[in-house]
């Protein structure tokens, strides 16, 4: 896919955020994912050209970080936390349940291209365990059933909104654009905090 002149201008503005251009390699890789859905050869070659690097230097970076995908993921990329705490509290069961429900293995994509599945590491929401992420938005306190409902809603084209996130779930490509540092105007959407985040505050206000 060719990048539009608007895309190239965006990439240029990403590069200009930094005192040294090489620093832009990560946001540019996120940006490539926002356009292509994953990091393909064309993206690596374009970034190498924009930053005056060798392609090997770009692919060395791209392959280091797990969020950069080598093949297309689903429109909704679902990550189930199976690090110890979430796993013990139900993450393992959720992951097993989703694999069976979707008929895919880890890193698999449903045939309709809607949902991909991955087991992920701790996502810094342990007080909301078990946690499921979709396009890196929080789905807190999940159960096997709620997770199945979630992916079903994605496949039917009307995904449930995140627990702590925007009013509607954005697509993988749209989320990647946010991760490239581009403001999608949805920061004000959703709750400011979930109940566990407020627990200590509430208790202190109760004078305990």
């Amino acid at each position, binding site marked *: 896919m060719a990048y539009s002149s608007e895309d190239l201008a965006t990439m240029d503005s990403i590069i200009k955020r930094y005192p040294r251009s090489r620093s832009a390699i990560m946001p540019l890789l996120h940006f490539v994912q926002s356009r292509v859905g994953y990091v393909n*050869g064309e993206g*690596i*070659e374009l970034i190498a050209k924009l930053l005056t*690097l*060798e*392609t*090997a*230097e*770009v*692919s*060395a970076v791209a*392959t*280091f*970080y*797990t969020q950069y995908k080598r093949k297309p993921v689903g429109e909704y990329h679902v990550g189930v936390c199976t690090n110890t705490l979430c796993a013990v509290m139900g993450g393992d069961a959720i992951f097993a349940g989703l694999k069976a429900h979707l008929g895919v293995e880890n890193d698999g994509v449903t045939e309709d291209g809607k949902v991909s599945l991955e087991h992920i590491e701790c996502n810094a929401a342990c007080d909301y365990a078990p946690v499921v992420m979709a396009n890196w938005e929080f789905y807190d306190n999940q159960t096997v059933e709620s997770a199945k409902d979630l992916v079903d809603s994605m496949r039917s084209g009307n995904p449930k909104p995140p627990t702590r996130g925007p009013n509607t779930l954005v697509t993988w490509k749209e989320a990647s654009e946010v991760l490239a540092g581009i403001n999608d105007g949805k920061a004000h959407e959703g709750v400011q905090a979930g109940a566990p985040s407020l627990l200590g505050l509430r208790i202190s206000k109760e004078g305990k």
Partner: protein
Amino acid sequence: MTTSAIVDMITVVIDGFEVSVPKGTLVIRAAEQLGIQIPRFCDHPLLDPVGACRQCLVDIEINGRAFPKPQASCTIPVEPGMIVKTQLTSAVADKAQKGVMELLLINHPLDCPVCDKGGECPLQNQAMSTGRTETRFEGVKRTFEKPINISSQVLLDRERCVLCARCTRFSDQIASDPFITLNERGALQQVGIYEKQPFKSYFSGNAVQICPVGALTGASYRFRARPFDLVSTPSACEHCASGCDMRTDVRRGKTLRRLAGDDASVNEEWNCDKGRWAFKYVTAVDRLTHPLVRNGAGVLVQASWPEALAAAAKGLKENTSAVLVGGRATYEDAYGYSKFARVGLGTNDVDFRSRLSSDEECEFLAAYVVRTSTTYRDIDRADQVLLVGFEPEEESPIVFLRLNKQFRKRALKVTAIASKLSIGVEKLKGDFVKVAPGQEAAAVAKQTLNAKSIILVGERACESAGLLTAVAALADSTGAKIAWIPRRAGERGALEAGAIGNLLPGGRPVADAAARVDIAAVWGVPSLPTTIGRSSDEIFAAVNAGTVGALLVGGVDPLDGLHSDDALRALDKAFVVALEIAPSEVTMRADVVLPVAAITEKSGSFLNWEGRARSFDAAVHDSLNRSDLRILSMIAQEMGTSLNLGTVTAAAKEITSLGAWDGERATMTSVSPAQAPSVSGDQFILTSWRRLLDLGTLQQGEENLAGTARQTVAVISPGRAKSMGVVDGELLKISTSHGSVTLAALVEDIHDDAIWAPRNSRGSQLLVNLGIGHGDVVTVVKI
């Protein structure tokens, strides 16, 4: 280390022994001073410390304060009051090292019996010294597809790799060619290339050489030998004037591989891939094994040595003769040719420049180069370096590495005067002074240098009239040092040996009577010829004009000159005695052909661009072939004179006995720059240079090496590309009245008037195809 440098010495105690080392020395190397070998993999003295493999852990305390855990001795500089306990005296360090070794081996395939590295493998050796006898690992080993080609000449076996990152650090830090990198993460981390960009670095062989395991292997050596079957001989590289120290490994009379030798003042521990992997020419070609003499029927037939020598002597004696010696002769052989011309033939008509040359160059060499010395160390100290008619990475790669080292270390300023920005200058982030081909002299005149600056002048500077004059003037006015860097290994030696028309050995001007007396005395002859000798081109012209009748030719490719038709005609016409290792354009036209020893079969020396002697012994000891020098002596004998140069040792001794010339240095006549040809429409001015890897004769038969050569392209500027409607990859036909070449276009940073193409690459042999090399007008059309 120079005596003038004041070095702070620090005394530390290692395993109970005191040792004093310069400040900044790493613990691992301080231990070496005591003969204490700490095992290591990632450590390399010429690469930045990384501390990745953790094999060299030792216990350290400083002034009674102990580090809580063992430290990597390859990353820690010595400090006053430091007490180090290695594996020899610390149980903790010993266990730490053994633990790391065990971990390095859990995923190692242990395929030593089929691994090229077996027998000379740091992992194998250190596993013996530091490893367990039996493994405790009962799990599943990491496997990869093996091996994979990362270029046509380098293979990668990721299972064997210990991820020390020496190869990737070399490629990045030393060669500035980060085409191999560490990829993936954690236990899956692996060395690799980007799938579409192979490891096409001119220096890739060094990565193979410093690999401490069998992960990187060279395609040419793979499965060929066991280290213990090889006989190693220290040698010097014959490929260019950089002067690399080398090691040649021979099995049963055949060179199987060559490695970079270790000479801190020259190539450090590196060399280029041409020097490493281009050696089959010695055996790939049908070597001449017997003398040949042209018979009455005009056919070259095998002859006995006495027969051939007699025929050679007769022909040379009966004619007015001249000597052409290529730029690849050893210093001693060149001296032999130089002396033979004067003593045997009574002429100064001898020239080592079997390439484009000029009279301006002759005078420049006599006035500014011979008997001077600018060195690698001077580059280390220079405040800036000016490149004139010289592309270091292509034409003297170790000079490039040294410039790059200083650039990376202290941002050495490099300025290149050229028509096209080269890959090498780009890597050096050099100032590119863009000029039209032929207009270099004016740009040189505008440079501001000082006494700490260096001007590196390539042999191509002679291709632009007035350029060497401008260089000389710049050096005179600023005090900057000049270094002349020819491409071929033998040129500097030949210059010092007087294998050129205006100089006798030791830089003595032919025109200087005292100089002639000096040399005549040593040579034991009453007098020496007084007429300044002619250049190669002039000698060929003289043959064609009938004033020279015989040529003694050694190691010359007549197609390397600008007027190869004239050269070939002259060779057809003259009585030619050829000294060669293999049939060539010269031998097929010769009347007497005398086979000589190849470089591996003889001893001798080269003088590199610094003027530094790079001597070597025969690597192949049982060769029956004789050196040029020995054969020249035999011809002289046959002619009734004597060279008294029966052996290389004798020649070397005689050269030493000449002593220094303390007379006047020759001066140089100024030459004015040529007017810039004006170009319009489809006209361009050609500029070109030879690439490191190309169709050079010494690279014959090296397919793996050739696979890493840079792509043959014709480079034009964005402006001209636009006006011609040309984009990258489209074909351009470049024509002169002589002929044409058709090449894929590449739009890059080049002067608008200029078009660049490689001078001697596949599909682009400009001297032969177009009859020109630099500064002349060509017609270019898009096909």
